[in-house]
């Protein structure tokens, strides 16, 4: 079955010793901190910490690939901001007719640290955590089970859809549909493959809804869990620590 997630099970502490909910707290705190952290040294420290955790989880290589994916965009940010940022006053250097300003470069640097930190923290979460387990944990902490159901079922639906796309594509190709040609022809091929898949998955919605109804999906009882995942010791402390650090960074930001 095709995997739609970047998660790979591994036997590291980050994967197995930290529970999914704590890693979700880590991600959310990191996003807030990436925006709030007021100095470059702070942002750099945060990045080192994130990369350290990724190395611990043995996912450094895949994470760096993900970060490199946004490198081109980051480079153009430096160029455009360095040249044209409205706040540009202080000339940093001149390359022929091109004037590069300090304000723009500093602005681009702030943004780059923010983006790379968010991506790195996301990698920690995404690559080491089973999405099904995250939803399970969230439902235990009070997320409505229906919301948990929605997210979990996406992981089941996408592979089913991709299988049906492959089947339709083969059928259409055997009837002479081409996957190349000019944009218009390719757009037609898109419709020929995509249309039937969408219609059939929409039609199955009613069956699925009935299947849920007959198994108590709308029952108003408090639900229970078939599989039990105990939260490792010390995780509550870790969550509290993450929240405290985040609050401290926000206060630091407001004070500076």
């Amino acid at each position, binding site marked *: *079955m095709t995997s739609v997630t970047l998660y790979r099970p591994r036997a590291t502490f980050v994967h197995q010793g930290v529970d999914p909910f704590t890693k979700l707290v880590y991600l959310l705190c990191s996003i807030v901190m990436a925006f709030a952290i007021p100095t470059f040294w702070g942002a750099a420290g945060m990045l080192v910490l994130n990369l350290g955790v990724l190395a611990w989880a043995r996912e450094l290589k895949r994470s760096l690939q993900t970060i490199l994916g946004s490198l081109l965009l980051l480079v153009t940010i430096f160029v455009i901001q360095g040249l044209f940022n409205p706040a540009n006053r202080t000339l940093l250097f001149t390359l022929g007719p091109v004037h590069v300003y300090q304000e723009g470069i500093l602005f681009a640097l702030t943004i780059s640290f923010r983006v790379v930190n968010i991506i790195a923290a996301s990698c920690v979460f995404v690559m080491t955590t089973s999405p*099904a387990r995250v939803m399970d944990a969230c439902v235990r902490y009070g997320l409505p*089970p229906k919301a*948990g*159901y929605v997210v*979990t*079922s996406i992981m*089941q*639906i996408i*592979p*089913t859809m991709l299988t049906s796309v492959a089947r339709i594509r083969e059928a259409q190709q055997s009837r002479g549909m081409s996957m190349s040609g000019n944009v218009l022809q390719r757009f037609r091929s898109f419709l020929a493959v995509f249309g039937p898949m969408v219609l059939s998955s929409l039609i*199955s919605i009613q*069956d*699925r*809804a*009935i*299947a*849920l*109804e*007959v*198994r*108590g*999906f*709308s*029952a*108003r*009882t*408090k*639900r*229970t*869990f*078939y*599989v*039990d995942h105990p939260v490792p010791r010390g995780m509550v402390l870790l969550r509290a620590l993450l929240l405290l650090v985040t609050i401290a960074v926000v206060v630091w930001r407001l004070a500076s």
Partner: protein
Amino acid sequence: MIRVRGLTYTYPNSDKQVLKNITLEVERGETLGIVGPNGAGKSTFCHALMGLVPHFYHGTISGEVIVNGVSVVQSHMGEMCRHVGLVFQEPIHQFSGAKLTVEEEIAFGLENLGVDSATMQERVDWVTALLGLADLRRRNPYELSGGQMQRVAIASVLVLKPQVLVLDEPTSQLDPAGTAEVFAAIEALRAEGVTTVIVEHKVELLVEHCSRIAVLVDGELKALDTPSRVFSRADAEHWGVEIPRYSRAYRALDPASESVPTTLHETVERLRDYELSHRG
């Protein structure tokens, strides 16, 4: 166990009565087969036993449907699934879509109803043993064969311990091996004393497992009797329902018979009797 009185139903945004004044009763532990041409209202009737009509589809309903002493029209869906289980055609569409192993899929309904974890374990053990799924518990439900999937679908409603199980064309998407698996499962349920209602086009298989047959045509209940008497009726040809070929063969031999045999076994017996009575 099931008591239906004067059930009439119309879907929303429609004027056509899909079920017209249906009255029938089913005894505890009985297996009732339902046959009828396409569009006769068989699925709608199944949905009415479960409460999907009217709670899911809405529309206009009159008459009463009492299952296991509970009025279906007055009860919430969350209550009904403790009394009635429904299984339908396409196995894959019946999976919750949220579980990655067979046993978790089967336990989904129990989780929704808030059953405690010891009972949950016990029920899953019971139902997987009953339907021969014990070896498949850790498998991904989407990677099973059609017959296995349909047994998982049956298990996942049966695990709620309903008194009545309704199967709406449970084998129409299955090959002969899968069909045999499903009917073997139905026999196992009969041994457990579960009251069963089956809609099925494969009429020869149906008559082997049912004590009575109901014929639905155009929303009306045309006949409700033992298979033998139903298929002996003179108007049976006009219902648009397949008649077991044994019954047809026997009728050719003995046009006046008021109770034709419907299964191979019965036919052999009757042919013996027939031969004896016509020899002397």
